[in-house]
């Protein structure tokens, strides 16, 4: 496979476990050496480096892990200082930089605590501080939020986003949680059986998924299951309408209702903001003459991102 990740973007790799996304990520800092091929970061092919050069290169590639992987017998300060020691920084520099980093991740008061005294979110913040110690250009996140509860996940994602925007660090993250991708990624790759099967901006993938796997991932976020009793009771045609971008702000539905002799009843709906762009999804029941309904459906299909008939009139 060939994959290019742009400078300064947040790139997500999604897939079920066993898809090879973890292996792919670990190839980026050669924790796992690819049997063939190149890994080029900032113009340098890592596979050609000797041990010493590789260590130097790794200083500039931060990595955080699902289970944090902190040294349990060392304090928060010492854990972060370790990365700086690897870069052969002086004692004074280390002292100063660690304090800066702990300030940035909001853990200044936990400086002398041991990892066992911290919550999961705090441990991940220490992990982030350690990964950023040597001002890396790339940050690799290996399921960094999968072991955290939803609200902690949000705060860690916000921190990652801040790091990306303020420090300009390229972030590559792998996850099986579509929520994570939706919240912070710019582009994503969907992986299956060791191959990238779909690649694009998050918005494009969410509004127009092509592969079945991608669709199933997206459904996990944009869940639209109607209760059974609603489907049984219905008399008209149930349609799912998707609006994207500026379409979501136009009055297509009300125009349709005025133009055709159909009645519309909204059963379900929501607008998600992905990368600050709206994606609206509504489920409506249309009642009226079959011809009119068909024309209404055609009208909407043309003017929106997509219309899917979930159930035709009984």
């Amino acid at each position, binding site marked *: 496979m060939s994959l290019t990740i742009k400078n300064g973007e947040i790139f997500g790799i999604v897939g079920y476990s066993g898809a090879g996304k973890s292996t792919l990520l670990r190839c980026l*800092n050669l*924790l796992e050496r690819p049997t063939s091929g190149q890994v080029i970061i900032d113009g340098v092919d890592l596979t050609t480096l000797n041990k010493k050069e590789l*260590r*130097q*290169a*790794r*200083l500039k*590639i931060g*990595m955080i*892990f699902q*289970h944090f*992987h*902190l*040294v*349990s*017998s*060392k304090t928060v300060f010492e854990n972060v200082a*370790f*990365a700086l*020691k*690897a*870069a052969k920084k002086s004692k004074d520099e280390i002292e100063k930089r660690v304090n800066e980093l702990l300030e940035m991740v909001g853990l200044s008061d936990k400086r002398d605590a*041991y990892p*066992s005294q911290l919550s999961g979110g705090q441990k991940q913040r220490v*992990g982030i501080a*350690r*990964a950023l*110690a*040597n001002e890396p250009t790339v940050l690799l996140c290996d399921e960094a939020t999968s072991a955290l509860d939803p609200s902690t996940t949000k705060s860690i994602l916000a921190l990652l986003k801040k790091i990306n925007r303020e420090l300009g660090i390229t972030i590559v993250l792998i996850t099986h949680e579509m929520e994570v991708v939706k919240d912070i990624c710019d582009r994503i790759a969907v992986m299956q059986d060791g191959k990238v099967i779909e690649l694009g901006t998050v918005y494009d993938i969410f509004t127009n998924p092509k592969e079945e796997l991608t669709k199933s991932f997206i459904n996990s976020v944009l869940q639209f299951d109607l209760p059974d009793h609603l489907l049984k009771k219905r008399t008209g045609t149930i349609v799912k309408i998707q609006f994207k971008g500026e379409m979501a702000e136009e009055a297509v539905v009300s125009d349709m209702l005025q133009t055709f002799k159909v009645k519309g009843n909204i059963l379900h709906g929501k607008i998600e903001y992905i990368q600050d762009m709206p994606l609206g999804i509504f489920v409506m029941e249309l009642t009226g003459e079959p011809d009119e309904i068909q024309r209404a459906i055609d009208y909407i299909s043309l003017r929106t991102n997509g219309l899917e008939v979930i159930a035709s009139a009984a």
Partner: protein
Amino acid sequence: MLLDSLINLIPELNKAFLETLYMVAISLSVAIIAGLPLGILLFVTDRGLFLENTTVKSILGFVVNMIRSIPFVILLVGLLPLTKLITGTTIGPTAASVSLSVAAIPFFARIVETSLREIDKGVIEAAVAVGATPWMIIKDVLLPEARPGIVHGITITTISLVGYSAMAGIVGGGGIGDLAIRFGYYRYDDTVMITTIVILICLVQIIQFAGDRIARLVDKR
């Protein structure tokens, strides 16, 4: 009568006790100095680790297993030429310490290796990912993380050495165990036998107690 024989025994007991301490102290020191690096080497040259080296790993592993499979009594006698070379004599507690050390090094090395194996591989990997040198990983990750396990290992090694040192009598090493065998076993002197055994029990209990305390003190997890 019983008290009398005990009092008569005191100088003998005292000497034997000091001899045991002497032998155990020397061989334990050697075991730690040589066994710790050996144990680390056995671990870091293993497959998938940062100094992976199959040749070194198999040679070291083979030598360690070989020494460990020789019964101590045979090792004691078999190493007499080496003992002569190092200490200039083949009898006495110093001479016995050579064989005790040789037996203790691989024993302790395996214990070190095992306690290193208990460390979460991810923590080691994180250190590799950070760009740390092998020496830094050993000093700042492996040793601190395995510290409680290594302290337990020292306790176990010490107690085993107390046991092994009883056989040192064969080369005139002396010690409490030897006293028990010579007076208690060969001469059917129950008083000596029981006294020495009580002393050995107390010694082992104290070592275990102290070892556990220290292990808890250094455990920051």
